[in-house]
């Protein structure tokens, strides 16, 4: 499973981002750069990632750093998968 592809696909579908206007790569900033990323979107992204990757996210494990960039979110998922 390609973590980057899955994370990017999740972000695109939850945030309804048009690929033509938002290039999403590992170094793309999220919080503070993408207006669509509000508290509801964070919840939906977490729930979707749990379903797609079969992981369980404890709410204490996430903070603004987790959602700083595509890369930070990828690393978070990779850490969860490695456990």
């Amino acid at each position, binding site marked *: 499973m390609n973590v980057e592809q899955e994370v990017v696909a999740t972000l695109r579908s939850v945030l309804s981002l048009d690929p033509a206007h938002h290039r999403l790569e590992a170094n793309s900033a999220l*919080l503070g750069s993408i207006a669509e*990323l*509000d*508290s*509801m*979107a*964070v*919840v939906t992204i*977490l*729930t979707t990632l749990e379903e797609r990757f079969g992981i369980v996210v404890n*709410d*204490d494990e*996430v*903070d*603004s750093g*987790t*959602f700083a960039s595509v890369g930070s979110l990828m690393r978070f998922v990779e850490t969860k998968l490695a456990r």
Partner: protein
Amino acid sequence: MKGPSTIVQSASFVAADIGTRFRLVSEPADSKPRGTVVFVPPFAEEMNKSRRMVARMARLLAADGWRVVQRDLHGCGDSGGDFGDASWSDWLDDIDSELSRALDDGPVWLWCLRAGALLAPALLAKRSGADLLLWQPVLSGSQHLQGFLRLHTGARVVGRAPRMGERSPLQRLRAHEKVEVGGYILSPALASGLEQAAFELPTAFAGTVVWLEVSAAHPLEPSPAAAVAIERLRARGIGVESHVLRGPPFWQTQEIEECDALLELTRALLANGEEATVHAPRQGIARGMAPNAAR
């Protein structure tokens, strides 16, 4: 078929154990209703997101000859009290008073949207005789509560809510404290009722179930949890008419969305249910529509 008839809508406040409740009744203007549809609303923000769909459905069903009763539950905005004062048992009492009144007066459909379905088992255990219309029912109260409390995590991540010290909202609720999540004050009495609720119909239930889901996924099929629950009901001999329609999850979308196909199928199935009763064909969209269209 007789053209859509004129409807009348009457709004009133009625007394409850604590405070008053707002109640909206939509019914045909010029004929005796064929029965009553009692609406059971979803939880918190899902209730706001779905107001338009619910209002449209109520008017359409009234035009089809049904009396539709929408009672605003304790603390839900139009009724008295604050959300933080409401308890699960208040909400059960609210719907039960509508159900008991309706059952004295012809056929009854209990129309549950999302978490409204979690109130149904306790209601149907107390009073028999109603059929069940489910729109995207929530099956597990603890899962639903967890999803709701997660809004606090979302707000914290985007910097709109502080950490509540060392304890999570759930831990605070367990310690009998109220918590504020997503703009709602949630009391332990409401949260624990929700958390313990599950969609398990009482053994005595002998009505029909119409189970409708809306999905944007390909292919269109019931959610896995729904498929299991539906099979369990059928194994008990309960007639379940289940359909999945393509459409937006209007109870949670950012913008207010609608699903016309859900309104039309619901009308057809309720009209059909009255004539054919109980065991409607499983793949019955086309056949279910036919008698309605032919009249």
